[in-house]
Structure formats: structure tokens, C-alpha cells
């Protein structure tokens, strides 16, 4: 069994900043727009190297989204940057009409997603963004797990033609993936094979899922962990083949249980291979102020809760075969 360790914690938004710089070096059509949050989005390095390819829009997110859509006409590849709440809910109609329906090659890059904006509280957090974005026809939705994967994803989406929602967080989280990895959009990563229960996690909850699997191992449970970094298009084959083996699944995400990864997987299972599922997600509520680590525990997004849900879903599986 592969043991995952980490020597440092880094924020995924810095992975985005590094990826944006590299994408800009590889492709001169890459441009960046930001609504007054350059530091938060870690765009400084890109701006220093390519000042003529950076647009400071001011605090005007609707205009930013519309301009990004327009910039694709003529071949620019715009990356927009602001907090996840202002990247989605605030500008949903602009994204719907000018980006998704018009099929424009815009990369909507959203930092501080989920609860982890912490002390700023619910107005600056968003737990609905995956749902909002995945419901748009043609929108690709990506939520990478650590610094390295966020960097790889940022580079990959620049090479992909079509609208993309890229979601990442604020706090530093363990870096445990390969720095030289290839990122394949829509292809899930089997992090750890197992036979008793599938844990399908996204974003930085993949690390919590790995921790949960190690706790479970000590109790004699062999958990399989899959990193669903691309929520849409969903790697249905990877999920179905895992569930075929384990017979039950826990989904884990920093999102409302409504509309997120768990719901996508539930839809898949009800239309193919029905299996017991448990959700690790925020139970249909807004967030609140607090330290990110405290919020993760209060809202049940930590390794202990994932392990608990794994045991619960295995009991449900067992009851089906009684």
C-alpha cells in the first residue's frame, strides 16, 4: 500500500499562480483578468512577466466575465480571478449567457472556495459553486487536491478548448502529489486501492480521505481512495469499477451536500449500479466565521468523520446481504 506523506503545506491558490505563469510562458494567448484580488489569487508573477496580458477590472465581476467572453473573440485565452462566490453566484447570468451558452474559451478561476475563507464568514464563502457550475451545459468543473495538482490543472486547462471552472482554496494544505504530474481532465486518480469501501473525494478533502483510510486500516478496513479532481465530466467508469469491487461509497467534498460531487455520484449509481452511499459534505447550511481547521471539524469535513461514514456505509452494505 502506497503511504502518502508530506513535508510541507502550501496553498492551492499558489499552485494556481505558478500554473498561470507557466501557462502564460507556454502560450502567448493566455491573458489574465482580476477584480481587485491580485494578491489573493497569487497572480503577481504572471503580471510581472506579462504586464501587457493582464487586465485589472476593478471590483466589477459582471463586467470582468463579459470582457473575458469577448476577449476570446480574436483568440485570447482569458483566466478570470476572484473569490469563488464572486466567480459564480454573483455573475451566474453573465457566465450562463456570455460564456457557457456562447461556448467561449474562458477559464473561471475561483479561489477561497468552500468554508476555508474562515474568519470572513458566510458572505465570502461559497458552498454552492460546484452545483451552479456543473449544471451549465458544456462547463468543465475541476477541483484539484493540492499545490502540485492545482498547478498541473491550471496548465492543462489552458490547452483545453472550452469553458472551465477551476476551484481552489485559501489555506495551506499538505502537498502530497508528484510535482511533475500530468493532469488529465476528466480522468480520476486512484490514490489507494482497497476492497471494503470506496472513498471518492475532491479538493483538499482527498488528503483527509487518505488519513481516514489509514485510520480504517488500523481497524482492519481496506478502503479505496479515488481523487475526483474533475467533477464534470465525471469519470463514471472509474467510480463504477471501484464500487463494483467495494459495494459501497463515501463521497467527500467541501460543498453543500446538495448539488456537489456526492449528488453527481448518487445520480450515476441510481441509474447504473445501486450501492449504499454516505455523504461527507456541509448539511445544507451556510458557513460562518472561524478558523478554517475549526470549521472543517464543526461541519464534519475531517478525516474522523470520513472514517465514521465509511464504517456506517459498510454496515448498510452488510445489511443488504443479510
Amino acid at each position, binding site marked *: 500500500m502506497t503511504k502518502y506523506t508530506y513535508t510541507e503545506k502550501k496553498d492551492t491558490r499558489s499552485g494556481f499562480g505558478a500554473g498561470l505563469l507557466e501557462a502564460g510562458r507556454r502560450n502567448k494567448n493566455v*491573458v489574465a483578468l482580476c477584480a481587485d484580488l491580485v494578491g489573493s489569487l497569487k497572480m503577481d508573477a504572471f503580471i510581472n512577466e506579462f504586464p501587457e496580458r493582464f487586465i485589472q477590472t476593478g471590483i466589477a465581476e459582471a*463586467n470582468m466575465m*463579459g*470582457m473575458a467572453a469577448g*476577449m476570446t*473573440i480574436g483568440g485570447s485565452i482569458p483566466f478570470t480571478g476572484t473569490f469563488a462566490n464572486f466567480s459564480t453566484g454573483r455573475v451566474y447570468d453573465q457566465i450562463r*449567457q456570455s460564456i457557457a451558452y456562447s461556448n467561449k474559451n474562458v477559464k473561471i478561476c475561483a479561489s477561497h472556495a468552500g468554508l476555508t475563507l474562515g474568519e470572513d464568514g458566510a458572505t465570502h464563502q461559497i458552498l454552492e459553486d460546484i452545483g451552479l457550475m456543473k449544471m451549465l451545459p458544456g462547463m468543465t468543473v475541476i477541483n484539484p487536491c493540492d499545490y502540485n495538482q492545482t498547478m498541473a490543472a491550471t496548465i492543462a486547462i489552458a490547452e483545453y478548448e472550452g469553458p472551465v471552472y477551476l476551484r481552489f482554496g485559501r489555506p495551506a494544505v499538505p502537498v502530497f502529489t508528484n510535482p511533475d504530474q500530468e493532469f488529465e481532465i476528466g480522468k480520476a486518480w486512484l490514490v489507494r486501492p482497497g476492497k471494503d469501501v470506496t472513498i471518492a473525494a475532491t479538493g483538499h478533502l482527498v488528503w483527509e480521505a487518505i488519513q481516514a483510510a489509514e485510520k480504517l486500516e488500523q481497524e482492519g478496513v481496506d478502503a479505496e481512495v479515488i481523487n475526483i479532481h474533475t467533477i464534470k465530466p465525471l469519470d463514471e467508469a472509474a467510480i463504477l469499477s471501484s464500487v463494483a469491487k467495494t459495494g459501497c461509497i463515501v463521497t467527500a467534498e467541501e460543498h453543500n451536500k446538495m448539488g456537489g460531487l456526492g449528488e453527481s455520484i448518487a445520480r450515476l449509481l441510481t441509474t447504473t449500479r445501486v450501492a449504499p452511499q454516505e455523504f461527507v459534505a456541509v448539511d445544507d447550511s451556510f458557513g460562518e466565521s472561524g478558523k478554517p481547521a475549526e470549521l472543517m471539524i464543526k461541519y464534519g469535513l475531517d478525516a474522523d468523520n470520513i472514517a465514521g461514514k465509511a464504517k456506517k456505509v459498510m454496515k448498510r452494505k452488510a445489511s443488504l446481504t443479510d
Partner: protein
Amino acid sequence: MKNEYSIDQLKYIATQARRDVVRMVHGCQSGHPGGSLGCADFMTALYFKIMNHKPDFNMDGLGEDLFFLSNGHISPVFYSVLARSGYFDVEELKTFRKLNSRLQGHPTTHEGLPGVRMSSGSLGQGLSVAIGAALTKKIKKDKSLVFSLHGDGELQEGQIWEAALFAAAKKVDNLVMTIDVNGQQIDGSTEQVLSLGELDTKWKAFGWRVLYMDGNDMEEVVATLLLAQKKALKKKPICILMKTNMGHGVSFMTGSHKWHGIAPNDEQLSLALSELQTSMNDY
């Protein structure tokens, strides 16, 4: 494509566009004739005289002037000038707003209709899009211009003012926006619904160069658009306040918000066509 049409020839084409508009809206018993008729002269001048554009359509449009229709509900006149200037077969106008058509009620790129570069319909978004296209032209050192058309009622959307602020502050001077000031919107006059106040002082205060024209006087439309081309690329975005009559060219549709979004019946269609002498050929 940039043709040397005379003013009289442009007037004939605009009349044909008006015939297309009333027939299209009648054909599906749905659509927005009022604003379409009011903007027929402007749209004709733009596509047949002013813009350097290529009916051999490609989405990126580098090296040619671009146009964005922000008030997408006046799609009939947009589709008519696109077809009449060679983007697609005029016969296709028959399919307007019908099942499986590329001519959706509001313009979209989704169905791949040549000439359409952006979906519009939900109001207030087109100025941002036009600015974005203008920014890419600047990055790519393409000196051609970006034109856009907006309804006056549409200015009630806040996004317009975000975009207005940006374009002036960042000197987006390869942009010519035109506002169709017909003073009417669905629920009544703009004055009654939500007064726009003094538009020229507003746009000037935002830092734009403001031009004015009677949008139903072809000579003035052409002259003003030529002036706008001359004034472009000089540090300021350009806003043309275009006074029009909603429904212009069809007497019983003129000047009332009632014809904003309803279709003529058979009798009304005949009456309208009798007032619009054809110069080309109906589809």
C-alpha cells in the same frame, strides 16, 4: 466587405430589411418588430457602408470590424442585414423562431449561425463583451474597430455602468457603442419606468466621447458613423446617442411601446408591407 452604396441605395436596403422584419415576426407570430424597425437604418448603414467585414465568417474576426448586438430581442433586423449582406441564405429568414432553426428568438452562437459571435438576450452584457473583443484587438495590434448596439432601456442594467467606467478608464478607444434612444421599453416609456436622466452628460462624465444622430435619417446615420470612425483610436471610447422612432417605417407601429414585442396579424402585415416599398426581393 465594404461597398460604396449611395444613400438612396442604403435606404432601399433598409426598407427591404423592414419588410423582412415584419414578415419574419408575422411568420412565427412572435418577436420584436418595434425596435427592429427603428434600428433598420443604422444596421443597414453599418453592414453595407461602414464596417470592413467578411461574410466569409470566422469567429475570431481579426483584421475586420466586429459588431455586437447587446439588445438581442431586435434579432429580426440583425438576421436580415446578416443574410442580405451575404452571411447566409436569405431563405433561412423563414425559419425565424421556429423549431430547429439557427435563427433563435435571441441571437446565439450555439447554433452556429454565421455572423453571430455572442449570445445576447439577457440585457446589459453586450458592452462588456464588446470591450473584451476590443481589448484582444489591441493586444493583437489589430487596428479595426468594434461596434455595439444597445437599447436605452438596457442602460438600467448595472453591468453597463461597470463597463462604461472600465472602457473610459482604460482608454478602450477602438470601440463605438450606439444606444438606440427610442424612449420605450416593455412596460411603457423609459421616462415612466425608470428615467435615464441626461444621457449625454452621464456618458461624458464617465469619460466617453459622445456623438448624436437621428437614427432614422440615413444621411445623418452614415455621416455620424463616418465621423465616429475618424474620432476612433484617440484615447476615448465613443458613444453614439441615436434617436429613433420605435416601429419607424410602419405608421401604425410608430412611436408606441405597444409594438415592442407583438406580431402583426395578416391584415396588419399587408398594411405594413404596403407602406414599405420593396427594392430587392422578399425571401
